[in-house]
């Protein structure tokens, strides 16, 4: 892990996270209507963003794996799914913490909540598949297909659930084209927080892929060793 890129990413994550925390807790003004709980939004939205990013990487890396057949793409796709699951869970948790004082309930079947929950289930089934399977080429291909199909499904999930019901606040753009964030300082905080989460995501992804690569190497070495022992025993 003592690799300049990894160290650089770690440093960038620490710096940007500290900056984001400072802005969220000290710099940004408290929202007039919702009060202090609105500050969780500066973590909530970046989590949602990286969860979606993770989903995109799962599909993209899955496609590259099917196309090029190199194990590194499979590792990338697996790592992105794990991180995506983590951040998708955080989205649901932070959302619930916010919803309780504002909407009066922990959970409601609003369109974006439902969409996120279905995405969470998709990640869950992907990870269950990987957990149940042996680490073979076959399952990597299957997982790639599942990842691609999952991402293809997202637009239809969004449309169907939106038609089903919605009460989620329009944060970035309302139907009239207005901002949900009135103060410029709020926009700045959101942007810094988004950057911090993105860098952190890349760093975690980098480390996780490195670990998976090591695991693949160990499996291969073990197999070679076993074969060699077998050959010697026969001699």
């Amino acid at each position, binding site marked *: 892990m003592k690799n300049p890129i990894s160290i650089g990413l770690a440093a960038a994550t620490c710096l940007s996270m500290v900056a984001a925390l400072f802005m969220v807790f000290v710099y940004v003004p408290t929202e007039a209507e919702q009060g202090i709980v609105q500050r969780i939004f500066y973590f909530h939205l970046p989590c949602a963003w990286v969860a979606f990013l993770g989903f995109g990487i799962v599909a993209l890396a899955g496609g590259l794996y099917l196309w090029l057949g190199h194990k590194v793409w499979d590792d990338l796709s697996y790592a992105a799914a794990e991180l995506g699951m983590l951040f998708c869970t955080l989205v649901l948790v932070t959302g619930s913490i916010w919803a309780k004082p504002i909407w009066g309930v922990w959970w409601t079947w609003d369109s974006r909540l439902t969409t996120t929950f279905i995405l969470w289930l998709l990640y*869950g*089934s992907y990870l269950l598949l990987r957990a149940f399977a042996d680490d073979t080429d076959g399952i990597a*291909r299957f997982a790639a*297909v599942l990842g691609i*199909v999952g991402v293809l499904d997202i637009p239809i999930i969004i*449309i169907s659930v939106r038609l*089903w019901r919605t009460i989620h606040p329009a944060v970035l753009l309302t139907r009239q084209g207005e901002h949900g964030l009135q103060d410029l300082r709020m926009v700045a905080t959101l942007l810094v927080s988004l950057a911090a989460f993105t860098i952190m995501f890349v760093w975690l992804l980098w480390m996780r892929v490195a670990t998976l690569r090591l695991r693949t190497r160990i499996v291969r070495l073990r197999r070679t060793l076993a074969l060699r022992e077998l050959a010697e025993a026969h001699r």
Partner: protein
Amino acid sequence: MLEGFGPILRKDLRLEVRTGESTVVLVSISVLILVVMVLAFGPAGARRAEVAAGALWTALIFAGTMGATRALLSERESGCLRGLLLSPVEPATIYAAKLSVAMIFMAQAGIAVLVVLVLFFNLDFGGALLRLLPVFLLGIVGLAALCTLLATVSGRVRAGAMLLPVMVVPLFAPALIAGSKASAAVLAGQPLGAVITWLKLLGAFDVLFVTAGYLLFEHVIFED
């Protein structure tokens, strides 16, 4: 392009006609799911159409995953898959054939469910049922496309057959919403025009997943 489609389909159907295994299991499972739903929610009441639609789709999802598993597992069990893959038949053609088989199984289960539904919920056999047909057909195309693609996992992973619904249900969620909403509206006596948005959504889902399955099937169907 679809050379080999006919023989595979004929073989699976002949196998089914001779043993009748899948039909018996799927029809009984879906009717039982319906019974469970009726016992749990009660047949009468103001939300009759919604409960009926929900029962129909719940039964279909589980019948669908089981039907698709059967259609693919029969190949794996007796080692037919190797022969099929060695033959000069495109994997996409195998997909198309298996998709058709799965659809026929699902349609059988679905028709049984519909008949029982009419009896249990005191619906009339006329127009509402006829209007339900397009919703039902669009629904099973998408479900069969998804299940056939993903059913290749069973037999390859521990508890693969149990894992299939876990993968299918979240993916099928949008079509499930569209299908059950449209069915509820139609069963409540509304015309097809009122549910056209849902039908379009189901159509889009079908096109997307049949295409995806057709293109991706070659990556998941092989002997380990």
